């Protein structure tokens, strides 16, 4: 019988840590600054719930189960696409969703890479993008939800980490 190796064992669950909000802020700002070329500002005064017609989501599984979500107005997502791909490529109607999905993927990846217990032990799904704002999202409890409100060129966007604890 072969011995059970570390790589074949399921990763131990990592408990939510309140410092993750700061890490999520850093991870998000870094992704936008590097990939979009504009540094978003923390919108600490915001008390609004996330809103907007485009939501990108990336599932997380392994040492941490949950998802990362990025939500903003369609016009804001289009602006991201234009800055990331150029105006011509961004004219493609699917580009804003694709760009938002990729940004969400990078935020999730950058977040987990900053936490050593997650980096090699948490897998990410491919991004899913919802277009439209008339929906509600229910997750099985218990969960922790951390939301980082940001301002990008004066427009709001929200990065959320929803964790099944």
């Amino acid at each position: 019988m072969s011995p059970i190796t570390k790589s074949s064992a399921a990763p131990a669950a990592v408990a939510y840590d309140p410092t993750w909000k700061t890490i999520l802020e850093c991870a998000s700002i870094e992704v936008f600054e590097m990939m979009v070329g504009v540094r978003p500002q923390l919108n600490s005064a915001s008390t609004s719930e996330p809103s907007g017609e485009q939501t990108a989501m990336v599932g997380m599984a392994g040492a941490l189960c949950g998802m990362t979500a990025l939500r903003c107005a369609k016009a804001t997502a289009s602006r991201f696409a234009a800055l990331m791909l150029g105006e011509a490529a961004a004219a493609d109607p699917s580009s804003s969703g694709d760009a938002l999905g990729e940004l969400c993927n990078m935020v999730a990846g950058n977040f987990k890479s900053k936490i050593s217990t997650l980096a090699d032990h948490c897998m990410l799904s491919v991004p899913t993008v919802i277009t439209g704002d008339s929906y509600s999202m229910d997750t099985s409890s218990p969960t922790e939800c951390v939301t980082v409100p940001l301002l990008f060129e004066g427009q709001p966007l929200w990065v959320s980490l929803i964790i099944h604890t």
Partner: protein
Amino acid sequence: MKKLKVLIVDDASVMRKIIERALRQAGLELTEVLEASNGAEGLAQVQTGGLDMIFSDINMPVMDGLEFLKSLAGVDAAKGVPVIMITTEGSEARVVEALSAGAKGYLRKPFTPEQVKERVAALLGVGQ
């Protein structure tokens, strides 16, 4: 400055466009940019020959980046063509595996055009 023919392998079309744009923003001259959405398509593109560099994602359906990288060892047209792996997840284990399998470097998303240029310059001595 040398003009480059590159292959970009990534299952996300938006990411392929971002990498191409980053290469152009970095001031690199591209004669041709080939695209593939997985390793199997990438192998077919490699057969066209004349590539100066390959960028490949690690996580892809059908044939992932590591399998693609290992398969390149048996392709004459890929001999001497440097491969840069692209990863989102910050997984050190996969990066180490890629480097052991012959990748000449890696880019971790997010990245800037300057970082892309640095990798290319280090490998090909262009764009400096």
